[in-house]
């Protein structure tokens, strides 16, 4: 077991290194730099801009820039944002990450709480109207662009029904304790559902298919032959086996959620990493883009690592050697 984890970890390190190279290469390939805009400002002395370029190391050859960057990040320093003057990338990421983590966690919660049971139910009632409804819902979740869903949701639930706030993370500053928590939760509902829409559909389909797969297995028949009740067969024997493959899905889920978050956060003015990334992209703030890409890639890598480990824990068939 420990060997297994260690091996996963050893694969993790070179991947991490390659990730940094890729991130950096992408950044260097990009045209222009963030100071280009200032060059165009008639009130700014071009020489000053050039000085700033020099100071920021933008004129060094790429390998040198890479090494600098790498040595910085190895000290936990993701560099200074170019667009957000005076702020470090890690500071920016830290200021936004919690929101995205809440959002992702909430959306994951929705995904699992809705997707998995629905998939189970659908599998149990295969080929009944319930199943078909769930199937159509599943496909629908995959077919609606999430910003479109979000806009309509905002219109209906915020402006028509007034149920949920249309944007933001909190409604008023200064709340504490349970009120603050509920306030945040209230703000998470719509973005969370929007973000989780596609995943929920995928989880639902996946759970359904896995359940059906497992339900057709010999050991389920054995369980029945042992006299186990339907509930026991379903929850103890089927579900546990069906959920194992879903763990792999979870490993990539954070990445998927983040992709979705770029769009969702934009609609709901939700100040998270997705929005930060988008600003970075719009301003060609490459230290920031690199930083976020790196953080996310590492998170996904860690997510996969955890998924692998979790997989090994719940599935005794995995060989650790």
């Amino acid at each position, binding site marked *: 077991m420990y060997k297994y984890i260690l091996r996963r970890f050893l694969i993790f390190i070179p991947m991490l290194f390659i990730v940094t190279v890729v991130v950096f290469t992408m950044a260097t390939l990009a045209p222009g730099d963030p100071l280009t805009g200032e060059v165009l400002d008639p009130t700014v002395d071009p020489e000053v801009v050039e000085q700033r370029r020099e100071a920021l190391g933008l004129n060094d050859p790429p390998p040198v820039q890479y090494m600098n960057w790498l040595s910085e990040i190895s000290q936990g320093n993701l560099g200074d944002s170019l667009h957000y003057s005076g702020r470090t990338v890690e500071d920016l990421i830290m200021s936004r990450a919690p929101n995205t983590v809440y959002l992702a966690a909430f959306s994951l919660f929705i995904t699992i709480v809705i997707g998995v049971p629905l998939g189970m139910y659908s599998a149990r009632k295969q*080929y009944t109207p319930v199943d078909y409804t769930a199937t159509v819902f599943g496909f629908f979740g995959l077919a609606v662009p999430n910003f479109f869903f979000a806009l309509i949701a905002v219109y209906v639930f915020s402006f028509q029904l007034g149920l949920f706030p249309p944007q933001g993370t909190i409604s008023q500053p200064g709340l504490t304790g349970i009120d603050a928590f509920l306030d945040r939760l209230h703000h998470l509902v719509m973005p969370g559902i929007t973000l989780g829409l596609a995943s929920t559909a995928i989880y639902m389909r996946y759970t359904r298919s896995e359940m059906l797969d497992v339900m057709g*297995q*010999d*050991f389920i*028949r*054995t*369980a*029945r*032959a*042992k*006299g*186990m*009740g*339907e509930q*026991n067969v379903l929850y103890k*024997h089927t579900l*546990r*086996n069906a959920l*194992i493959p879903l763990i792999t899905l979870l490993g990539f889920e954070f990445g998927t959620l983040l992709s979705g978050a770029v769009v969702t956060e934009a609609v709901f003015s939700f100040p998270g990493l997705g929005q930060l990334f988008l600003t970075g992209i719009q301003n060609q703030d490459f230290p920031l883009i690199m930083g976020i890409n790196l953080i996310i890639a590492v998170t996904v890598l860690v997510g996969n690592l955890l998924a692998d480990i979790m997989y090994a824990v*719940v*599935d*005794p*068939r995995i060989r650790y050697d």
Partner: protein
Amino acid sequence: MSKETLLEVEDLHTYFYLGDKVAKAVDGVDLNVHKGETVAIVGESGSGKSITSLSIMRLIPQPPGKIVSGSVKLEGRDLLALSDKEMTNVRGDDIAMIFQEPMTSLNPVYTVGEQIAEMLLRHKKVKTKKEGKAKAVELLQQVGFPRAEETVKEHPHQLSGGMRQRVMIAMAMSCDPKLLIADEPTTALDVTIQAQILELMQSVKEKYHSSILMITHDLGVVAEMADRILVMYGGQIVENTSKYKLFTDAKHPYTEGLLASMPTIEEDKERLESISGTVPPADNFPQGCRFAPRCQYAMEACTKEVPALREVEPGHYVRCILYDENQGGTAHDS
């Protein structure tokens, strides 16, 4: 037969409804198992053996399957009339079952001990999990695990096929069932392992005084194990007799063919007999006798209607027009 009847199946019909087709997997099976007896059902693939056994257990996948008619009586109690809940009490406790695929018949995520203990708890043979585990160790020792204490903590994938089949047997016997149904318990195993398992089943049977309904397509296994043999073809029993009779005086042309086409280790056959054609699909049985298209003795009358299973000699039932005096059939000796 003076012995007490344990299981009695009458005119069982189990059909599968597949779109516009109906597969009559089991189509009028009668069988009975006496206390302490080992009855074997033999027949080629697709003849309905497994479905018969699953019907007895009421484990037919539904839909598309459905027990259409018939009765299954265990010590006089009609199992088909029980509620689902009551039936679960019968399964495992009164009738236990082991399957062909030891590799996949155990749940991969639970330890062997957990799976045995679960069954014991379910049927209230033990009160706590701990007790269950202890009992499991005991059971495993009985089926020949030298390191039973460790084995209970192992997961199925850590065991070989033969060992898993032993676990299955231990589990099946754990609640002291009256009847053990074994659906091709050794088909997936190597001969040497098969011999071990068959041996084990014999000893277990003697120890627990249970009856066995054994399903197989291997006539050799039947010869080793059974007291009485039922030959199945096309969802029906075509011959029902004692082991000795079957191997010495098989009556149904199909049984005859089977025996002749089987190479054996004892005798040197110059050339194997063979039955031409293939087993008819369950959704498209021929008219009349289902074996008729492949039967060397087939005649006009065979294609008319399904012959009845009748007792041609005491305790020897055959479903063939040749033995039906009314139809003018003449018994022949092969």
